[in-house]
């Protein structure tokens, strides 16, 4: 095969979307290191990572939904509910509180998944409704007041907050989830089916795949991971509240799309979301150092989402955009 043919073949298999996110990350890192020489110090990077761990876990869950071509708008209230459940139940159940929180996440995802598939409601409506329901229930259950985990029960939180080998456990946990989801995405039937459904649902159906079942699994995974990120949040904040996950939805969507997983579905994956998290990490740090007002940063992310979607969406696949 000639060199030109090899290049042409490569072009046909790699697209711009594959390369952009990493290129962006590299550029940002270079800019940051110039601006702040201490940026590349391991201590600094690890500190940043532990702050982003929660976001990474949530983003990983949302990745599977976006790979499907759907969206889950309810992840923040689900995470918040998980913080409330954990904080409320630790005194009575100890570590069991975390198990309950995870089960709640799976249950929330099951509900949304069933409503989406069996009642055939578009995901953004089903999860919008879920968002309202869980926000409301969160406020009711916690009586709109934050719940603290008492010092006496503090030892239940150390599995996350402690340091191992100088690094906060939360980083290890998040990376473990990353590895887990990577295996799910690339080495299991579930991952394969999710990608196939997102890339071509009709053809996947004709190939005999039980579409509804795997969609429900995906929503269960996403909500369970949202709950897990809630657990991480509650341990680090030593409590739970209905407002604890505010602002996470926007960032979670941003990390998935900035990483290169298109909302048209089928293309992308968890490693890309990891890159997306790194990009957001560096971007946040850069904006903070530049003195950009934190609220203005929210506006910036809104704009970034719009831009990123515009750049990555595959218009050839959706004839009428509503």
């Amino acid at each position, binding site marked *: 095969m000639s060199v030109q043919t090899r290049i042409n073949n490569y072009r046909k298999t790699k697209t711009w979307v594959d390369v952009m996110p990493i290129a962006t990350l590299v550029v940002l890192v270079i800019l940051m290191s110039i601006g702040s020489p201490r940026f590349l110090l391991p201590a600094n990077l690890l500190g940043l990572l532990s702050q982003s761990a929660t976001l990474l876990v949530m983003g990983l869950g949302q990745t599977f939904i976006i790979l499907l071509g759907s969206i889950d708008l309810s992840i923040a209230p689900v995470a918040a509910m998980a913080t409330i459940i954990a904080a409320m139940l630790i005194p009575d159940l100890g570590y069991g509180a975390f198990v309950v929180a995870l089960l709640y996440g799976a249950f929330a995802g099951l509900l949304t998944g069933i409503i989406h598939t069996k009642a055939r409601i578009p995901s*953004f*409506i089903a999860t919008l409704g879920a968002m309202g329901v869980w926000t*409301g229930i969160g406020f009711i259950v916690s009586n709109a007041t934050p719940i603290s985990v008492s010092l006496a029960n503090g030892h239940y939180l150390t599995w996350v907050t402690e340091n191992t080998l100088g690094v906060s456990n939360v980083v290890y946990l998040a990376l473990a989830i990353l590895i887990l989801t990577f295996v799910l995405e690339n080495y299991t039937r579930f991952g394969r089916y999710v990608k196939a459904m997102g890339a071509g649902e009709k053809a996947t159906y004709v190939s005999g795949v039980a579409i509804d079942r795997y969609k429900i699994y995906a929503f269960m995974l996403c909500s369970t991971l949202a709950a897990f990120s809630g657990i991480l949040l509650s341990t680090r904040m030593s409590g739970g509240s209905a407002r604890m996950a505010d602002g996470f939805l926007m960032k979670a969507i941003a990390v998935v799309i900035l990483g290169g997983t298109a909302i048209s579905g089928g293309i992308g994956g968890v490693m890309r979301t990891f890159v997306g998290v790194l990009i957001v990490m560096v971007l946040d740090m850069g904006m903070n150092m530049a003195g950009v007002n934190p609220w*203005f940063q929210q506006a910036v992310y*809104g*704009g970034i989402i719009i831009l990123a979607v515009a750049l990555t*969406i595959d218009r050839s696949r959706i004839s009428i*955009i*509503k």
Partner: protein
Amino acid sequence: MTAITEGRAIHKLRGLRGKPIPSIIGPFLVLLVLLIGLSIINPRFLSTANLGNLARQSSILLILAIGETFIILMGSIDLSIEGNMALTSVIIGLLAMNYFNNNDFGIWAVVLSVVAGTLMGLLNGVFHTKMRIPSFMATLGMMYVGLGLGTWLSNGMNLPLLDPMILSWARGSLGPVPNLTFFGIAAFFLAFFLERYTRFGRYVFAIGGAEDRAKLAGIPIDRYKIYAFTLAGFFFGLGGVLNSARIGAGSSTAGLNQLFAVITAVVVGGTALTGGAGGILQTLVGALIVTVISNGMVLAGVHSFAQLAVQGLIITIAVILTLDRSKLPFIK
């Protein structure tokens, strides 16, 4: 009879699944039952003070829901309400007479705020049509933009409004009728006129009914989508200004929890989320139903947070019951 002619016979009987012009009788009866039921359960419901509250809240909700109705009629959705209201509320908080600066722009503060809201709507329309981003995504992004800008400009603080004229719009009444009601009525008639008597209104229905056929007929789809989003932005901005007047301050939280109330009002009134069916009259009934339920819950001592859960539930159930699934090739 051959198989084909049998099939034709059935097609003739079945007609079209789901009527494009949903009757308001259903929702209206629901409203009536609620009104009667609540007055019996709690006589305070019919007190002048409470009725005044109802009129004020429903007027603002109606104005917001009118904007959203045009979008949903087209088959799209606008999630930017809360961001739009945050921005317009903060702008009026800063431009009208306040404690923090020497501004006293009066009516011009109102105009500029509403213009800002309208511009946000315009951007929604442009991003959706020209950059071909699905409406829920484009408006979600703009939601954060508006919210971020609003919180930034106000530094997260409340900006009490001191301008007596603006405050009187919300607090004053003409006899027993609160001033806000007049805004609501005016908005209603304007929107109704647009829906029934202008080409714009009919094209909105056409785009929502069958966008591919509308395009075939030569309708400039992108242009009218931009008009609709801009108009929605206008109504959201107006709602933001009036809500600020009602709470007495400009604040980035002016739109808190409004998204759910608005969508519930539109869906419950009978406007289908798939587009092409429903209308302003339906939204009027829907807005009244949502306000009455929320008012009833408050009177019954139910936590206002429960409302969010209830509304989320209502939206889901209403959509399950009314969604025209034949219009969605596959559900994503």
